[in-house]
């Protein structure tokens, strides 16, 4: 394979990562493992003592776990959109950031379903979902959709990795640990870049890019239907399918920008991931913010304007007890990215990243406001004196497992970059002129 100057430079950045692990990185990994360990202990407590250790009770039976489930599934959308869509549109600027998008997708997709498992009372009976599965149940739709999505995304990611894996294999770099070289040899599938192989690979990638977008839309709609097929006030909404899809891409964009910023700083990729990338993904985020705001507005407007008794109770709860969360998730989270990206003067890398952080927090809160307040305002009033039976408050068990989820995300991302360059090196070969590669 011929190598351009850009590719050489990029390999120079990422090869040391593959070859060895620095002292600081060990500390970072140890820290993450520690957080995951705490989550593991919390999980042990939950399995040993029962779900009573969580804040969930008979009224609010779904809590932070389900919120995290929706959240991580949403984040996994980053890859489906940015990588899949931009691949199909052949947008040149995508090249330095698609690898990150694909990493985010696959990692979030592996974490998300774990959170729904935490919510299940009898994990020992999990095989029943397949053995006694009923197609009438939206949970079965979810099982089918998510497993298809994971499968499709793994294939898509693998296709995108193949050329880089073959490239590292062909380096014959003796500094790379032996077991890693073996890994590249097996995973490289004997790809050498013959014209025939290139044709097949491109065709397969095109098909999978389209598939991944379609599957992701289905997965997120099915997830929304779990809520909207019920009769609960606040959930029983026809808008939920597309609303959830938009919210998912929105949060995916937010996480994408944050990860871009971190990786850019850590590996000194200022040359490759430029302001243009932040602005471009930022513009996508702006469009999504507008759409998300529109969906949110029409959902709550119709509930508030011609409200049934229970919708009214729910709106009251949201506007009083959840005042700040509602404000952050549905106003600040929508308006901030629009202002920051919309006004050219404010469009700096730092500002866009900061607004992305706000967006991610806002969307987590948005899911919380969808799940919890509805369960706190059922048709029959909650008549109970035990506070935990009336209002939901997540316990340390739920928070440590949430932290563990974030830690697993960071850990897997760290490990992924130790195997595969964070920028798709092979994609950068199409133009020999480095000036064209380095987008400014």
């Amino acid at each position, binding site marked *: 394979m011929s190598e351009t100057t850009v590719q050489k430079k990029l390999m120079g950045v990422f090869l040391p990562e593959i070859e060895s692990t620095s002292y600081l990185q060990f500390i970072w990994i140890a820290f993450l493992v520690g957080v995951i360990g705490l989550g593991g202990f919390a999980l042990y407590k939950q399995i040993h*003592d*029962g*779900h*009573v250790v969580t804040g*969930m*009770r*008979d*009224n609010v*039976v*779904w809590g932070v776990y389900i919120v995290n489930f929706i959240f991580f599934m949403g984040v996994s959308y980053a890859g489906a959109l940015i990588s899949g869509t931009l691949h199909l549109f052949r947008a040149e600027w995508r090249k330095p950031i698609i690898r990150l998008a694909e990493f985010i997708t696959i990692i979030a997709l592996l974490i998300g379903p774990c959170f729904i498992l935490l*919510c*299940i*009372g*009898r994990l020992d*009976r*999990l095989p*029943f*979902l397949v053995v*006694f*599965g*009923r197609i*009438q*149940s*939206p*949970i*079965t739709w979810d*099982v089918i959709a998510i497993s298809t999505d994971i499968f499709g995304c793994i294939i898509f990611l693998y296709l995108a990795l193949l050329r880089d894996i073959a490239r590292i294999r062909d380096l014959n770099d003796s500094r790379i640990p032996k077991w890693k070289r073996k890994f590249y040899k097996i995973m490289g599938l004997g790809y050498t870049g013959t014209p025939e192989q290139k044709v097949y690979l491109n065709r397969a990638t095109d098909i999978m890019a389209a598939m991944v977008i379609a599957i992701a839309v289905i997965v997120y709609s099915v997830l929304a239907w*779990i809520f909207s*097929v*019920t*009769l*609960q006030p606040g*959930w029983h909404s026809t808008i939920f399918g597309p609303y959830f899809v938009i919210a998912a891409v929105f949060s995916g964009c937010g996480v994408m920008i944050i990860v871009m910023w971190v990786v850019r700083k850590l590996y000194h990729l200022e040359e490759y991931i430029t302001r243009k990338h932040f602005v471009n993904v930022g513009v996508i985020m702006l469009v999504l913010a507008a759409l998300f705001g529109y969906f949110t507005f029409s959902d709550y407007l119709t509930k508030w304007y011609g409200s049934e008794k229970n919708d009214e109770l729910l709106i009251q709860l949201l506007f009083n007890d959840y005042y700040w969360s509602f404000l952050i998730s549905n106003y600040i989270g929508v308006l901030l990215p629009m202002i920051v990206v919309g006004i050219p003067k404010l469009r700096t890398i730092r500002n866009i990243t900061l607004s992305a952080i706000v967006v991610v927090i806002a969307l987590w809160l948005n899911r919380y406001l969808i799940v919890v307040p509805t*369960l706190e305002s*059922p*048709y*029959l*009033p*909650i*008549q*109970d*004196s*035990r506070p935990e*039976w009336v209002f939901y408050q997540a316990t340390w068990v739920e928070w440590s497992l949430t932290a563990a989820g974030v830690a697993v995300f960071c850990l897997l991302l760290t490990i992924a970059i130790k195997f595969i360059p964070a920028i798709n090196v092979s994609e950068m070969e199409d133009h020999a002129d480095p000036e064209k590669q380095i987008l400014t």
Partner: protein
Amino acid sequence: MKENEKPQKSSRRDFLKKSLVAGAGVLATGGLVEAYFDASAAESGEKVKVMTTDGKIMEVDQAQLRYPRVSREESKKGIPGKKFVMVIDLARCKNARACVDACQKGHHLPKSQEFMKVFLLQDTENTAPYWFPKPCYHCDNPLCVSVCPVGATYKRTDGIVLIDTNRCIGCKFCITGCPYSTRVFAWEHYPEFDEDKQPYSPEASSPGVEGTVSKCDFCPDLIRVGKLPYCVSSCPMGVIYFGDMDEDVVTNGTETVQFSKLIEDRAGYRYLETLGTRPSVYYLPPVERQFPVERGFGDLDEETRSRYENTPYMKKNKK
């Protein structure tokens, strides 16, 4: 092999003691009900006449009579030719909570798990408050059954919605699916679950299983042997009527009336009819009430009393 089986068989015989056939009441499947005799249980003094398998009539103590629980397969079928219905007379309820206590005792439930709940409802500010006992409605269009991913909850031919807690995976989707807050989750292993020494059967909803969902079951195990559900037989006011829609008859234990006539005369209705779940439980409106609402607070313990603290009625009284 046969010799190995022998001691097992004889120990089983010790427990069963005698295989008996007892006469059944109006609600049972047929004229005869299978039962066996457990001499280890305490006597109640109340004797019933039974016929043994070899045709002899003998007298045994009521409390020592045991009925074999039906298997999961059998429990899925439902009692043939029946369509069970419940009518709750809101004019008579004074929140005595005998139904709640009897139900919890009968199903071996902890205090925090109530299959039968009594609400203090007030539809609007200007309408009168009333006590509102709420069992499972055993809907004819049950959302809980539709959403169950593993078929752990099911609708039977006799209209009863049951849960098999040996099948339930505890996803709680049915809890969010039910618009009547009927279902409860076993958040831990409650000591009460150990009280029931009999083998598990979905019909008895007992013993409970940690990490699964359970709810009011209309006591099909009692119906099978010709008894009324715990809540019906325990109510001192005769608030709850139970019966068969096909036969058009309901009873509260003391009086037996025609179901359709009762509904017609007393303007019976179903709660939240607009949701389209088609409940099997009907209510008679709280007109010409036998007790003022305050009577419902009479003998309540502190904890139970405080549950009603946030109701509009109590808030208004405090002012």
